């Protein structure tokens, strides 16, 4: 720190003074609780609206409220905190994960009717469906303890045995052949390949930073990882599972996708 910096620092010090109030963890917790309560009330209201009006009523309401030219789509209420969604390759079912209640809600795309919620537990945050459409992999990250990946048979909508990989799985993507799922783990800065045939995790690929999102090229040769903290994208060769040279993008990176 040079002389000017020091002088500036002294000036800032002199100007700041002391905060008049303390911020307490208790107040923060109250605000979080309050926010969650509001979310729950909103969800409950949505359920009441759906129950009172029924699917036909909702569609009619949607038609009444929506400006002309946008007719034909309707909002599907699944409740809670809908954190992620994935659609089966045949386009018939959308799976919506609901972080608040620890469930996954299947929605029929033909009727936009939601099916019974599938309980997976924890705090499901991400979902992806295998290219063959047989299994949906749900990433569930509980507030404490390690996260898990729950395979969900789409034929029966039943969850299978959770796969434990590491501490904090964040995002998931499949190779086009469906043989491997890649899961990013922000906690350990790694990407973990999982064989979809055996659901056994392979050795973690160290990429560093906080890998937050992943996409695989249509050819399946490369998985691209978006690193949240360093603002870089790291290519991983799927043949050798080794990371390549990071591509600098800048900014906090939250998502990634590849053109078809």
């Amino acid at each position, binding site marked *: 720190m040079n002389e000017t910096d020091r*002088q500036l620092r002294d*000036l800032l010090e002199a100007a700041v003074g002391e905060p008049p109030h303390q911020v307490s963890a208790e107040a923060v917790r109250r605000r979080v609780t309050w926010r969650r309560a509001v979310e729950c009330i909103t969800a409950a209201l949505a359920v009441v609206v759906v129950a009172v009006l029924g699917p036909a009523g909702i569609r009619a309401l949607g038609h009444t409220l929506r400006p002309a030219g946008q007719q034909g789509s309707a909002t599907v209420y699944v409740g809670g905190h809908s954190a992620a969604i994935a659609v089966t390759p045949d386009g018939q079912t959308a799976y919506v994960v609901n972080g608040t209640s620890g469930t996954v809600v299947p929605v029929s795309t033909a009727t936009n009717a939601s099916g019974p919620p599938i309980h997976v537990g924890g705090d499901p945050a991400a979902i992806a469906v295998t290219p063959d459409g047989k299994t949906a992999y749900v990433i569930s990250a509980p507030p404490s303890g390690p996260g898990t990946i729950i395979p969900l048979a789409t034929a029966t909508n039943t969850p299978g045995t959770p796969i434990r990989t590491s501490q904090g799985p964040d995002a998931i993507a499949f190779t086009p052949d469906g043989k491997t799922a890649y899961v990013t783990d922000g906690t350990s800065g790694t990407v973990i390949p999982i064989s979809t045939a055996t659901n056994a995790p392979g050795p973690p690929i160290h990429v560093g930073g906080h890998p937050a999102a992943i996409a695989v090229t249509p050819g399946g040769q490369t998985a691209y990882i978006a690193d949240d903290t360093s603002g870089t994208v790291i290519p991983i060769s799927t043949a050798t599972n080794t990371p390549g040279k990071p591509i600098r993008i*800048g900014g906090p990176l939250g998502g990634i996708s590849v053109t078809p």
Partner: protein
Amino acid sequence: MGAEVDGFAQFVEVRQRALQRTAWLLTGDWALAEDLVQTALVRSWPRWERIRRRDDPEIYVRRVMVNTWTGWRRRRWRAEYPFEAVPDGPAAGDLAAEVTARIAVCGALGVLSDRQRAVLVLRIFDDLSEAQVARVLGCAIGTVKSTMARAVAQLREDPRLAELMEREAR
């Protein structure tokens, strides 16, 4: 639930003053500063266990704080007023010096861009390294350096601040 909540409570207790002071330098208002710190903590708390494991929680919370602040600036910023004159007569002794410094600093910081202001406050006042500032702002270290240089150059042009600095140097 116990352990991670304790960690959080401890973090808040130990760091809230420093966070609030940083927030004041960003917002120039104690009520907003308090709200900013609380909002950043509210956003961090649900992910606390993961934040603590993967990262320096302080850097993470500061990052949420700066992002929240820039979000406010884009959407609903009405609370900061430029200080043209001291509203009341000067008080005696140190208080007057503090008020003078406060007005000069608020005025000078108000001229900076959001990013310049954030870099300056984090680097100079919070004494974070260039790499840490880069992580908080999600930018390259080079950007931190150049932004910092521009911010300091800009502050040097402020006559009130220059006067105070000169007085201090003597």
